[in-house]
């Protein structure tokens, strides 16, 4: 018979003809024209058709639109989370469409407020109060603050406190915090609200009796078994002195009526009254009692249980698979005597032992987000007692310094979203000791990769690490014991994001001093802080493959006794996604809860800044238009940034990868200074690869050839600066290093108007006399000083009329190592006969009108100003002065704007490594330089 099949087909027709109305959509928050603080907000609404599809679109003032699908719960609650909130007015369109395709649209505006308002999480002991005290901050102390309509006291520092704020006593409590200027009430004008109403989970409690009765009718010899339920609800906080029968049923009889039973001595909140066992209960049907054979027909209570049910509501929209961890603390008094509580029962499960400490039972339970869970404290042996049950969310949180203000908070200030993730670069450079300069530097990335290191290689490497804070909600003892396991895990990933985590040496404060303090940096390198953490399964990387189950050792060794503990991480896999802190059971197989995610985008650093080039082949003349460098990654222009642009111009003798390495070091160190604008690199065709002897011999006159290319690259730089100034008018900043100041100086000199806000010349390898003819003469050769007097003896200096920048700042080092050799090179000009062609100077005459000429073969070719200026400067005219970067007190354009790099606190010194000191060494030693650079550019706060 096996194998026989019977098929029955049914045809169904979906007929929407009866559906004639669109769903009803009610906006709850925010209301039209609401001023909202922060950079994200969440829409709450209600739809009467839970099958409806709801979407929200947000259009900012630039016309950019984000469309986000809403989450619709089974009860019709609508949530649209983490919508981007841009400056100005954001136009929001909320659309609900039912299965029949009928839709309804609600439009409203949300305006980002310049005023920031935050609310602190409510303390545990306030969660079941009718009136609570709420605190927070407001960035403008002239604003008044209200919470749920109650005006707060604004202290101006910038905290506020609102007392006696009413709270919804059951279910989910919401707080609406509003701030307004010079208003008497929150409703009388524009107010500023939190990004979203803060949601906390609270509990409802009721005591429930279940009596099972067996009735013996001795008269007819039958048993009548019946059950009835008495549900006694305690209304928390309000009218907390009454018991209510809400349901009363006895099989075979009429339902009982609702009866008010008053507790004899109701305890003071939050203590509640409960009874687990009542005296024998004798039931007499119809109010009569029968006697048969001398026995009274009566009822017997065979079982009677009473349980106090704590209903937990995990706030927020329901999410598949998401749960919150809730901490239950239970105290029981029998009379005035504390009574031990040993276990609790989750509905439908066996009692779970509770940790008991000072007769306070404590238990963590997992509750699905958006759902409720019933919990029953088990109090064996107690009859009449009072109890105090507190249920609080175990706040699991991750945080990074998303707003890059140097501080990490778990609130909206450091909130990440899908649209605005925390971006961090891959640690795929190769930091190490460079023996050629006797300092730490970026080594050739083709010979190594820090992403393959499971240790922090050196203090320089630390600038590729960022902080990750973990809020485990205070159950570290359970993590130490292994009762729970905390885990980091990826969700909703794109690409292959991977990080490695390290215990923070600053395990007490979790600060950023590992970047600035040499002692802390050294401690961070020591084992085990300098070694990637291994999870319980031995994996050293947080991958998308499996949760990274943090071992108990971390909690034993590095937990600081608070709920918040600290890690560093570096990015070793390219991609993006959500990172969550999850809690697993003791064997790591069952996830009990997880935090809200932080959104990370791990990118190659080359995606985070812009690269331009006018050529990288030193034997090819530079182009006049810079092109984008896109290999291996191009700039990700979607990265949000302030409306400023710093362009970096490199110096001499750098291979293309070294140019990028210098730029990337600058980018990273500016990042750690809190610079949030755009950053770009301008590459020009310097010669490179001049290692001692062989390389030099095979490429003679390399320095002067590069200088020639530098002068010729100025047009390309100016064109790029003009482009940038069109996009970021008045906010383009230029920083150039060493010979890059030939390029930069000439570009600004060619500019017909200001294209750069501030130009910072760093260790500039260009004659100081270009800007100020009065600085000291280094030598006085017979060749004229055409830098100081261009191009006749009575003329001003060459860059005297430079108009390209508003402010010029000279970062100089009088004993700069390389600029000492620059003097030697200058002394060798004119480059007579060294190589084809040879350059010469003789007293101006009819033969050589301007004195400068070159010899090619048998021909003398005269050189003229201004036509051959670049060639004369590069090969023929020695500087009388020191280099700008080795000269103090340069006047002219640099008047008053000098930064002495030789002296304290910079201390770049006279060694080889001092010339590029801002790019080598580590951030601890160089942060002060970059801080000064930012300040001089006018970018400090």
């Amino acid at each position: 018979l096996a194998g026989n099949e019977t098929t029955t087909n049914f045809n169904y027709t979906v007929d929407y003809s009866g559906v004639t109305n669109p769903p009803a959509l009610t906006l709850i928050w925010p209301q039209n024209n609401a001023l909202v603080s922060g950079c994200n907000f969440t829409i709450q609404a209600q739809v009467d058709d839970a099958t409806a599809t709801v979407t929200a679109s947000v259009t900012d003032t630039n016309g950019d639109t984000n469309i986000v699908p809403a989450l619709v719960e089974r009860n019709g609650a609508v949530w649209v989370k983490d919508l981007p909130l841009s400056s100005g007015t954001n136009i929001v369109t909320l659309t609900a469409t039912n299965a029949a395709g009928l839709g309804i649209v609600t439009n409203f505006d949300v305006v980002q407020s310049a005023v920031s308002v935050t609310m602190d999480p409510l303390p545990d002991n306030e969660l079941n109060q009718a009136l609570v005290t709420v605190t927070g901050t407001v960035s403008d102390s002239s604003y008044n603050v209200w919470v749920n309509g109650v005006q707060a006291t604004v202290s101006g520092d910038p905290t506020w406190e609102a007392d006696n704020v009413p709270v919804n006593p059951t279910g989910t409590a919401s707080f609406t915090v509003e701030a307004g200027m010079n208003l008497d009430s929150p409703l009388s004008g524009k107010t500023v609200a939190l990004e979203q109403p803060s949601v906390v989970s609270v509990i409802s409690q009721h005591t429930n009796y279940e009596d099972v009765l067996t009735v013996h009718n001795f008269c007819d010899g039958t048993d009548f078994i019946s059950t009835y339920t008495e549900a006694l609800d305690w209304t928390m906080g309000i009218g907390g002195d009454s018991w209510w029968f809400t349901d009363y049923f006895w099989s075979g009889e009429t339902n009982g009526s609702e009866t008010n039973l008053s507790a004899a001595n109701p305890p003071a909140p939050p203590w509640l009254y409960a009874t687990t066992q009542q005296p024998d209960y004798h039931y007499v049907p119809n109010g009569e009692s029968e006697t048969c054979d001398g026995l009274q027909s009566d009822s017997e209570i065979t079982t009677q249980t009473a349980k106090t049910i704590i209903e937990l509501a995990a706030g927020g929209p329901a999410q598949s698979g998401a749960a919150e961890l809730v901490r239950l603390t239970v105290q029981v008094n029998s009379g005035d005597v504390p009574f031990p509580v040993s276990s609790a029962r989750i509905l439908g499960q066996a009692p779970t032992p509770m940790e008991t400490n000072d007769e306070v039972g404590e238990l963590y339970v997992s509750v699905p987000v958006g759902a409720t869970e019933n919990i029953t404290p088990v109090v064996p042996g107690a009859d009449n007692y009072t109890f105090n049950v507190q249920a609080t969310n175990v706040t699991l949180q991750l945080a990074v310094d998303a707003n890059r203000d140097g501080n990490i908070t778990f609130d909206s200030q450091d909130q990440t979203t899908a649209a605005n993730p925390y971006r961090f670069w891959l640690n795929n450079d190769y930091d190490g000791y460079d023996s050629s300069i006797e300092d730490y530097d970026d080594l050739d990335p083709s010979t190594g990769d820090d992403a393959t290191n499971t240790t922090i290689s050196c203090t320089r490497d630390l600038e590729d690490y960022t902080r990750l804070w973990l809020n485990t909600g205070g159950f570290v003892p359970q993590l130490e014991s292994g009762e729970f396991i905390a885990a980091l895990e990826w969700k909703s990933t794109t690409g292959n994001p991977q990080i490695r985590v390290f215990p923070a040496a600053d395990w007490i404060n979790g600060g950023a001093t590992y970047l600035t303090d040499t002692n802390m940096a050294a401690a961070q390198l020591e084992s085990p802080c300098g070694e990637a953490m291994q999870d319980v399964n031995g994996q050293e990387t947080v991958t998308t493959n499996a949760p990274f189950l943090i071992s108990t050792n971390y909690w034993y060794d590095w937990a600081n006794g608070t709920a918040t503990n600290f890690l560093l991480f570096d990015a070793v896999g390219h991609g993006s996604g959500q990172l969550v802190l999850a809690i697993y059971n003791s064997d790591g197989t069952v996830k009990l809860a997880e935090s809200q995610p932080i959104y990370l985008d791990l990118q190659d650093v080359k995606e985070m800044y812009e690269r331009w080039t006018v050529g990288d082949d030193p034997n090819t003349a530079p182009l006049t238009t810079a092109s984008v460098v896109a290999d291996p990654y191009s700039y990700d222009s979607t990265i949000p940034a302030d409306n400023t642009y710093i362009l970096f111009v490199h110096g001499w003798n750098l291979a293309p990868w070294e140019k990028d390495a210098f730029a990337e070091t600058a980018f990273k160190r500016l990042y750690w200074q809190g610079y949030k604008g755009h950053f770009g690199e301008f590459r020009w065709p310097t010669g490179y690869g001049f290692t001692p002897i062989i390389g030099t011999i095979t490429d003679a006159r390399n320095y002067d050839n590069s200088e020639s290319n530098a002068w010729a690259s100025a047009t390309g730089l100016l064109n790029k600066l003009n482009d940038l100034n069109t996009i970021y008018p008045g906010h383009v900043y230029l920083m150039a290093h060493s010979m890059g100041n030939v390029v930069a100086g000439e570009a600004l000199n060619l500019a017909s108007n200001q294209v750069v806000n501030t130009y910072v010349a760093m260790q500039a390898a260009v004659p100081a006399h270009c800007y100020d003819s009065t600085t000291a003469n280094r030598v006085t050769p017979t060749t004229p000083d055409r830098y100081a007097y261009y191009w006749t003896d009575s003329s001003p200096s060459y860059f005297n009329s430079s108009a390209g920048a508003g402010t010029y700042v000279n970062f100089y080092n009088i004993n700069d190592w390389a600029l000492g050799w620059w003097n030697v090179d200058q002394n060798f000009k004119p480059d007579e006969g060294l190589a084809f062609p040879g350059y010469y100077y003789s007293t101006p005459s009819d033969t050589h009108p301007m004195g400068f000429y070159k010899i090619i073969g048998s021909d003398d070719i005269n050189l003229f100003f201004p036509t051959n200026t670049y060639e004369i400067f590069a090969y023929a005219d020695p500087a009388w002065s020191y280099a700008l970067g080795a000269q103090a007190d340069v006047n002219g354009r640099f008047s008053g704007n000098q930064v002495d790099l030789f002296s304290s606190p910079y201390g770049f010194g006279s060694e080889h490594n001092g010339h590029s000191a801002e790019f080598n060494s580590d951030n601890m030693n160089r942060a002060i330089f970059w801080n000064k650079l930012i300040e001089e550019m006018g970018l400090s706060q």
Partner: protein
Amino acid sequence: MKNKLAIFLSIIALLVIALFWRQMENRTTPTAHFPVSNALATKNVTSASTELQQATIHSNTFQIAEQTQQDSTTIAEEKARVILKSRNLPIDFWGKVIDQDGMPLPSVKVESRIRHWDFAAKINPNGTMIKKETTTGADGQFHISGDSGDNLEIKVVKAGYALEPNMKLDFGYGTADRFNATQENPMVFKMWKTNIHEQLIVGNNRFHIATDGRTYIINLTKGTIAESGEGDIKVSLTYSAQITDDQSNNWLFEMNAVNAGIVEETDSHSSMYAAPEDNYTPTFQFNQRIRNGQRGSTGERRFYIRLKNGQEYGRITIEVFAPYNDKIPGLVDIQYAINPTGSRILR
């Protein structure tokens, strides 16, 4: 620049290539036009013939005529030797070590490192360090001489004393570095007894100010700034973007000490560990003319300050910018250390 050693090595190569090129060109170049000064080498390949390869480097101190038939490596090495030597200038350095009270400190160990350039078998881009050691005499003086180089580093050591930080310990020769280190005017190194310490009130603040000339009062003890109330320093900044041709300045910063006085410290290597006893003045002014679009600045200025009619002393470093940026008209960056005990010691 990176691997700057390549500068002179490249020149070596130039000379070598020049010889070959001259051999091919078979012509005589003009004579040298570059009279060398300051004992710095210059290059001038004088002549070459089909049969004689010759390279000469002229200088006031060096002149080498190369032998014929040398291979290129040998010639390059010779050029390198000359170039390197050109960096070496005679070191004749007089120093004096004093204590915190200005008294000479005898028997101080003075270690020195002179960076000397020569062509060793293996070139060290940081040069060869000539290490010397001497001791101060009864007058606290010491003398370093007899060697040549382009940089001198000094380290002074005496038990129970610590060198004042930030002191200049690195001296460049043949650079823009300017210092006095003669017997009559020796370079002074100040050392402090290590047990001298005072409790200081320190602060580091950035204040935003208007540039319309209004007066602000900075309270150093509290680290605050306000337009009224009590404080230690009054500051004002007047800046106008509108400037006429006959107007010399459009940017004025004024600082007035309240019941106090200030003395500017111009030695950038002073640690300002001891406030002077007198010469305090109540006011500092700095004015300048800045162009439209330029960010004016006082530059970093350092002052000793005598507060509360002499009851307190301190030091401040201040730099003022205006216009700073679109959001901040004026910025005051101030760091300070105050000794509230009345002592002039600021260590």
